């Protein structure tokens, strides 16, 4: 396979913003909508996904020459599932309350399409160093998105952030926000904002470029 020129910094930073798995690629929607009803849940979920993605990217990238093409997907799933089990039991041992709240969604990290997508599209084709950098960037972007959604929903839905009350007594909770419709609404509005920023940024860069040409 012909290697393209890789730049470690670029591979790391693209996942945070330019190719953010949630806001740009719209992957991993299941945990995104299901467990972001409080910032704490969102962070636990984001960190667990972070661990699984980075560890399995490292593993698969180092094993890429021994994995036969025909059975690669099932092997990826087995490797990912191993790390998910690790994460599952770690959370159960350290944060039993959060584990109870997240419930079935921790085992479901196995089928998070963002993780499988990174293995198939990146980790299995490029050297270990870049695969890990890419995984850290992507998982960081995912964590950032989870945190953004979880914070908005928790602030409006219960008036707290990480269980710290923000509005004092007598806050009227916005019930919709902690229910599923709130997840869809918030995600939609954040996507809208993201696309708007990207568009404005593109227009700005275009303008700068034409001005520079004019000089």
């Amino acid at each position, binding site marked *: 396979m012909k290697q393209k020129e890789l730049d470690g910094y670029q591979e790391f930073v693209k996942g945070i913003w330019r190719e953010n798995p949630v806001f740009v690629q719209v992957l991993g929607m299941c945990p995104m909508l299901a467990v972001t009803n409080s910032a704490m849940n969102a962070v636990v979920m984001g960190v667990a996904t972070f661990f699984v993605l980075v560890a399995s990217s490292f593993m698969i990238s180092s094993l890429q020459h021994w994995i036969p093409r025909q059975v690669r997907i099932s092997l990826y799933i087995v490797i990912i599932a191993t790390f998910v089990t690790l994460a599952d039991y770690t959370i159960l041992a350290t944060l039993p309350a959060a584990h109870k709240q997240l419930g079935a969604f921790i085992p479901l990290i196995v089928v998070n399409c963002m993780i499988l997508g990174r293995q198939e599209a990146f980790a299995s084709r490029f050297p270990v160093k870049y695969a890990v950098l890419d995984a850290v960037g992507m998982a960081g972007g995912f964590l950032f998105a989870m945190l953004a959604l979880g914070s908005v929903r928790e602030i409006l839905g219960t008036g707290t952030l990480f269980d710290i009350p923000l*509005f004092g007594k007598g806050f009227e909770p916005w019930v919709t926000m902690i229910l599923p*419709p709130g997840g869809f609404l918030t995600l939609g509005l954040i996507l809208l904002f993201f696309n708007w920023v990207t568009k404005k940024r593109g227009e700005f860069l275009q303008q700068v470029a034409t001005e520079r040409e004019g000089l």
Partner: protein
Amino acid sequence: MKSNDPHLRLLPAPLLRQGMTTPSAMRDVILALLPAVIAGTWFFGLKALLVLAASIAGAMAVEWAFTPIEKRRNAIGDNSALLTGLLLGMTLPPALPLWMAFVGGMTAIGLGKVIWGGLGTNLFNPALLGRAFLLGTFPIAMTTWSAPGVGFFDLPSSLLALPFQSPVYDAVAAATPLGLMKFEQKGSDFLNLLIGNTGGSLGETSGLLLILGGLYLWWRRDLDWRIPVAIALAAVIFSSALYLADSAKYPGPLFTLFSGGFLLGAIYMATDPVTSPLTPRGAWIFGLGAGLLVVLIRVFGGFPEGMMYAILLMNAATPLIDRYTQPRVFGRGGETK
């Protein structure tokens, strides 16, 4: 165009104009709603007007903020945001905190219209979408109704709750006729239903004035008469059948027609030209479906009032109805030649 002008006129086509424009249609609807608004203010006092003003302000603020500067004069001037805010306000409880009404107006225009691309492109009725959001978000405040006929200048403390703060109700809440029917199997006096002297949303209680406004709109040709007629027909047939089956348990057809938001919804919201079918046959299907759903939700559903969800559901079906009721195009040729 009648003209006694002897001069030769050179004008670009079209030469005949109907005179009905978006702003004029919107103005007609607002005029038709005014009597009901005045009646609501009479029964519920100044607080009703304040809730209306807050909801209109929310709608206009979002419309203004999300319209490009060069289009602002048209977007605000065509009264559509004003009408959306007014319709939303009329479906709200009179003692709702003003900040909630403002949020509702913002949601109605923001999520109901702007996000779809502005006037004429939305799938759901914006006012009802705003109300659905409010009902889901603040379920307690949205179902705490106050009784009509208190002092005109009484401003309950719940109305003036600070933003993000829970309202504190100082008066005992009154039940709406629909709530009484659903939870206590009690009917209401028909005359009070007709003139609007009952608990309920501030603009939907007076059946008589809403019908008068509807007749005005029909005379001005601003609404498709088939939709309200079909909704009423379906609701009357369905509720009569239930009433005949068990008159102690189910409300009669007259009660169905004049209670809750039925008339406001059927005449002013279901007939929104943007979100209702274009073809006459489609209008009949739309209306019959909505009428059936209202009775279904009211009688067998969990909510006392079903008009909002009935219309929103039929709104969702509108593109499909339009697709299947297109008139046949003649003169295009066909299989048999």
